[in-house]
Each structure stands twice: as structure tokens, then as C-alpha cells.
């Protein structure tokens, strides 16, 4: 019995996923011993944020086969919505420091971001993706990719035209002493943002696995004709999936507003990072994306620690390129195939 487990474990370690995860854990432990526990804390907190941004992208890619280049712009929409909701709330809080809004105001803002993202996603589906899908699904992946490139430029510049290019930021969501974990401090905002992202990713996973709608989405991602035969309304599922993916991006923008103020091109960095995660973990693999998010976070933190600030861009992209060369489908592979890939 135990021999079997050992054998299974060694077999698992030999797979790409096992190997890279083992290396990641070893590197994390070694670096933590070498520099201190703050490295691990930073990795986990950063990873939580990346996971939230990356799952939305994964959903878009895995189910609809849309390589979303405008994902960061939905992040921007989320942070913008949260900013406009939270600014009056924070003014109110200043005058009424005992109000229940002190605790729950931020949640309203973040929820607002979620809803804003979902609406924006639904509008994009109606105006952009829907028409493209109905006209032709020829060469779908590349065409939809280029479409999102246009969408990204459009949203960035609309933001600038309408809201201006200044940085719209807040002091923070929750005031209070930073939390200390093993000698490393993290702010209340950051800790709560991590919890929010963990909860949302978990809820999302449960939704995809156990609810009827979630199963329908997965069915669509695997076999569109089969899904149609069993009576799933494809149009509705596609609409839902896009809003969901955009809402995930937006909610991460909303919950990170305390750290990343809203401005037109704010989405670029989350976009790069989300793509790193998705390529690393394999397209359309949600659990893989979560693990991948922590790996990219580790890579980022380690690079800053040992190479220097500003390199946390060059080193991960070079490494992920290597992974693409040797393991084109990502280290976790992908078990879902997009519907529109011909």
C-alpha cells in the first residue's frame, strides 16, 4: 500500500507538472531559509492576486477559445467602478467614523466592481464577440485575438477621453494595523484582498464543478454540438461565460484599488502577468492556473530579491518562453478544448 503511494509519487514527480511544482517548492523553501519568511508571505499574497486575474483569462481561453488581450481593460473597468463607488463612501466615513460602512463599504465597492465587470463583459459580447461569432468562426482564435487587441486600445482611450488620464486612487479600504505573520507585516487591505481572491476562486471552482450552469459551461467547452443536443442554450452560456470572465478581472481590479490606482493603461501589467500564468499552466486549466499563479509570483519575488527591481519582467518572460519551447501545452496541459477551434 505505502509502496504504491511512493511509486505514484515518484511517477508524479517525473511529470512536467510534478517536476516544476517540486522545483518551485524547493526553491521557495531554500529562498525562505536564505532570506527570511517575508519572501514566502509575499509570494502567497502576490500569488493570490495573480490567481484571480488569471482564472478569468483561463475561462475565456478554455471555454470560448478567445485569447483575450483586453483582459487588463476589464481589470481597469473594475478599479474605476470601485473608485467611483468608494470615493463617496470614504467621504461619508470621514464624517461618520462609527458607521457600519467602515467595515462594509469596501465590500460594496468590490461588489460594484464585480457587477460593473459583468455588465461590461455582457456588452462586449453583444457588440463585439457575438457579431464576430455569427459572421464567421473561420480562423477564430487569431481573429478574436486581434479583435480583443482593438478592444483593448478602444477601452484604454475611451477611459482617457471620458475620465481623463489622472491616477484615481484611494488611501486604503480598511484602516488598521498591519498583520504580522512570522515577522513579515502585511496590511489589512492586502490580507483581505487575498482572502477575497481565495474565496472567489474557490466559489468559482465550486460553481464550475457542482452547479448545473457550471457543468453546462464545461460541456460547451468540450463539445458544442453535444451540448446543443442535450438542450443547452449556447448563446446564453457564451454570454454568461464572457460576463463571468470579465467580472473576475474586474473584481481583481476592484479589490486591488488600494494598491493599484485606476488610470487608462493600468491593465497592462495584470495582462502580462495573467498571460504568463496561463501559458505556464496550460490554456483553459483552472486549477493549473491557480498553481501557476503562485509559481509566477514566486518567480517574480525571487527575481526582485536576487536580480533586482525591474527585472521581474525579463526573467519570467524568458523562463516562460523556455517552457513554451519544451512544453507547448503548458506544464499542466489542458483538458478542455475550446469550442470554436477548427
Amino acid at each position, binding site marked *: 500500500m505505502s509502496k504504491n503511494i511512493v511509486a505514484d509519487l515518484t511517477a508524479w514527480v517525473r511529470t512536467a507538472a510534478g517536476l516544476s511544482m517540486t522545483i518551485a517548492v524547493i526553491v521557495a523553501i531554500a529562498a525562505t531559509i536564505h532570506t527570511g519568511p*517575508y519572501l514566502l508571505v509575499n509570494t502567497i499574497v502576490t500569488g493570490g492576486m495573480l490567481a484571480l486575474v488569471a482564472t478569468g483569462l483561463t475561462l475565456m481561453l478554455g471555454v470560448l477559445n478567445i485569447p483575450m488581450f483586453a483582459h487588463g481593460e476589464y481589470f481597469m473597468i473594475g478599479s474605476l467602478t470601485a473608485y467611483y463607488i468608494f470615493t463617496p463612501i470614504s467621504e461619508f466615513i470621514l464624517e461618520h467614523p462609527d458607521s457600519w460602512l467602515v467595515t462594509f463599504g469596501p465590500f460594496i465597492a468590490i461588489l460594484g466592481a464585480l457587477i460593473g465587470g459583468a455588465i461590461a463583459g455582457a456588452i462586449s459580447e453583444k457588440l463585439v464577440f457575438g457579431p464576430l461569432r455569427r459572421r464567421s468562426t473561420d480562423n477564430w482564435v487569431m481573429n478574436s485575438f486581434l479583435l480583443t487587441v482593438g478592444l483593448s486600445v478602444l477601452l484604454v482611450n475611451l477611459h482617457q477621453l471620458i475620465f481623463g*488620464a489622472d491616477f484615481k486612487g484611494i488611501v486604503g479600504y480598511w484602516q488598521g494595523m498591519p498583520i504580522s505573520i512570522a515577522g*513579515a507585516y502585511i*496590511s489589512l487591505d492586502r490580507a483581505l484582498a487575498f482572502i477575497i481572491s481565495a474565496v472567489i476562486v474557490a466559489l468559482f471552482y465550486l460553481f464550475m464543478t457542482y452547479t448545473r450552469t457550471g457543468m453546462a459551461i464545461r460541456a460547451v467547452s468540450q463539445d458544442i454540438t453535444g451540448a446543443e443536443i442535450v438542450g443547452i442554450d449556447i448563446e446564453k452560456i457564451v454570454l454568461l461565460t464572457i460576463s463571468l470572465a470579465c467580472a473576475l478581472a474586474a473584481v481583481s481590479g476592484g479589490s486591488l484599488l488600494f494598491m493599484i490606482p485606476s488610470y487608462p493603461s493600468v491593465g497592462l501589467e495584470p495582462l502580462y502577468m495573467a498571460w504568463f500564468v496561463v501559458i505556464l499552466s496550460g490554456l483553459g486549466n483552472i486549477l493549473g492556473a491557480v498553481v501557476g499563479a503562485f509559481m509566477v509570483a514566486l518567480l517574480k519575488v525571487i527575481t526582485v530579491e536576487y536580480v533586482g527591481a*525591474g527585472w521581474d519582467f525579463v526573467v519570467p518572460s524568458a523562463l516562460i518562453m523556455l517552457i513554451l519551447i519544451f512544453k507547448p501545452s503548458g506544464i499542466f496541459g489542458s483538458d478542455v478544448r475550446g469550442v470554436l477551434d477548427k
Partner: protein
Amino acid sequence: MGTKKILQVVACFMAMLFLAGGVASAADKVLPVGVLGPFTGPSAQTGKEFQASVEMALETINYTVGDYKIEPVWVDSQSDPAKASGAYAEAVEGKGIQAGVLNWHSSVAIAAMDVAAQYKVPHMFGFGASEVVNQKWQADPEKYSYWGGKGWPVPAKLEKNYIVALNKAIEAGTFKPKKKLAAIYGEDTDWGRSAGGSYKTALEASGWEVHSEEYFPATQTDFYPLLSKYKKDGVAVVAGTSTSPAAITSFVKQSQEIGLKSVIVASGLGWIGDWYKMTGPASDYVLDSIPQLTTPEAQQWAKDVKAKYGFNPSPSAGGLSYDGIRMFIKILQRTNELHGTLDKKTIHQTMVEEVNTGKLTYGKKDGAIIMNEYKYTADTMPDMVVAPDAYFFPILQYKKGKGSIIFPDDWKQKDFEQK
């Protein structure tokens, strides 16, 4: 049918082209002045402040100098030297600007200098502090005399004051670092690196050990890894700068969150009008060197900007540019007095003969709101005279969103306080 439509489109397009060409003709007695700034792109907030300053300054003279109506032409640098030089050339050729004012980035300055020289258009008060601009200027002062006095001296002249102030605090016993270990950070731009270089020189000259020199992209907002490294190594002073509001406010805020005890120099935090809204109490004890709006005129100006444009102007991008454009107006008035006509030739002549020699200056008596006096001399060109009674940034320490001057001694409002 199809062909007809195409022809229509082509006709419309041609019509637009000629319309665009026709804009070039200018009426008599109008003086178009180019305002070069990043009106779009990552530094668009600065562009907004420029625009407010220019409009407010021109309103004080009712847009007229002598018989001339001053017409501002917005030249968008888009924070990109290549695009800026194109836009500048276009403003000269297409809109006939006779002079230019302001500018933000050094990389843009380097490209625009050549355009100004090429078209012989005098340009005043461009920021763009880095040494490269000065080196290029000094390589051919004749040619680049069109790129007049800069609005911001090279970082070495002002940024070293932080270190001087800190060393003085050590002498006075108000600052007791465990070890003389300092880290340098900055945004990865010409400005960030120049400023970082001057901190380094000043630190090493006064017996400090430099822990590290790190430059990050202007869009970075997560500094936990970097700050944790400083905390672990017990860095006593963290000195650096960024012009990006997102980066610098996050840096300050997160330094408090992770419990970094070092003295933080955040040069440029106050360049953002609404910085306290973004950092909150995390900015306590942070050092900065932004002049405050001390005089009543200055405060009135800030109120007016807020009332008219809806944002709190920063003393640097807003205040300095306001002074800059007012100085430029003084130059125009002087030129009008001397020559009776205003064009690029006469303005350039005044600049070379009167401004660059120190004859014409602009100061508190003229209504300057930020500096005591803006004065250029043959020795300092293209920089201005940097001295406490001329152009000078005092070193401030923030507490509760208010800065108190800790350096120089004769301006001092209070002593340096350690966190």
C-alpha cells in the same frame, strides 16, 4: 454603386487634407505659442496641470501683450521623443508657432531641442532635468540657444540636499542610524537614474555605504519584495524618486505597511497635487523637497485652480510651470518694449541678450508663487542659478499631510524627526 461610394470617400478625404493644410494661414497680430507637454500618455496628469497653468497665466494678461493676441497651441509630446518631435515640427509648420514653452521629459527635450534649433524657434522653461540635456546644450551653445533656460536644474544641484540635510541631522543628534547604510531606488527613466546617481555620489562622499541601486518601471505598484529586502538588511536611509503618482504613493504606503523603519526620501511625492489622498498617514516622516505654496498669492492660485479645474495643483508641475509661463510673458512684454514686434527672431534675441545674461529675471516681486527668483547666467546655462535666495527646493518632512521645512537652516521650521 460600389465604385461611386469609394470615390465619395476619396473626395471627402482629399477635402479634409486641404482643410488641414489651410489652417496654416494666420491672422495679423496673433502670436501662436506652442505649449509642449505630455497631454496624453502615462504622464497626462502633468499635461493637465500644464494646461491649467498656461490658461490661468494667460488670463492674468487677458491673452494680450502689446497689440498681440497670444494664442496657445497645445503640442502633445505623448511622453515619446519621436512623436513629440513630429508634433513640434507640425506646430511650427502648420500652426506657425513663434515660440515654445514648457516640456516635461528629458528624452523629449533632447529630441525637441533639435527641432527648435532647426526651425529657429525659441523655447523657454522646458523641464527635463537630466544631465544629458545639459551636455547636449553645452556641446553647441550657439545652435541650442533656441532651447532657452530650463525650468529644472540637473538633479545633482538639488537632490544632493537630502543627503546634506540627513548628515546635518546626524551631527545635531536628531538622527541616529544604526549603520550608515543607504539604498537607492527610482523609476527607470532619465530622471530617476540621474537623481539616483546624484544620491549615490552624495552618499558615498559622506561616508555612507550604498546597499543597492534599483530602478523599476514607472507603472510598478507592488513594492513588497523590494521593501522587504530593505527591511531585512536594516537599511537606514531609502532615497529615491518617481514622477509616477501610482509608483511613488504605493512605495510610501507599502513601506509603512511592512513596517520599514528607515528614513524614506520620496522625492516627487509632492509633485502630485492630491498625494495625501493616496498615501494617508503613511507619508509621516517622509522627506521630500517640494516647495510649499507659502505666499498668499500662491495659495490663492491653488484655490483658483481647484475651483476652475477641480484638482489640487502640485507646486512643481503646476506651480513651476505657472511661474515659467509668467516669466515667459515678462519676456514677451520686454521684447515688445524693445522691438515693437513679436516674432521668433525678436523673442530669441531678448532671450539671448537679456535672459541668459541674467539681466531679465523673474521673482517674488513680479508675483512668482514658488521660487524667490528665476535667474539665468552665462555660467549656469541652460540651468538657472540654484541658491536659497533664487531657485531652491527646501527639504521637507511630512507629518499628517503637512510638510515642515527642515533644511536649509535659515528656512527651518522644525528639526528632523526620526520615526
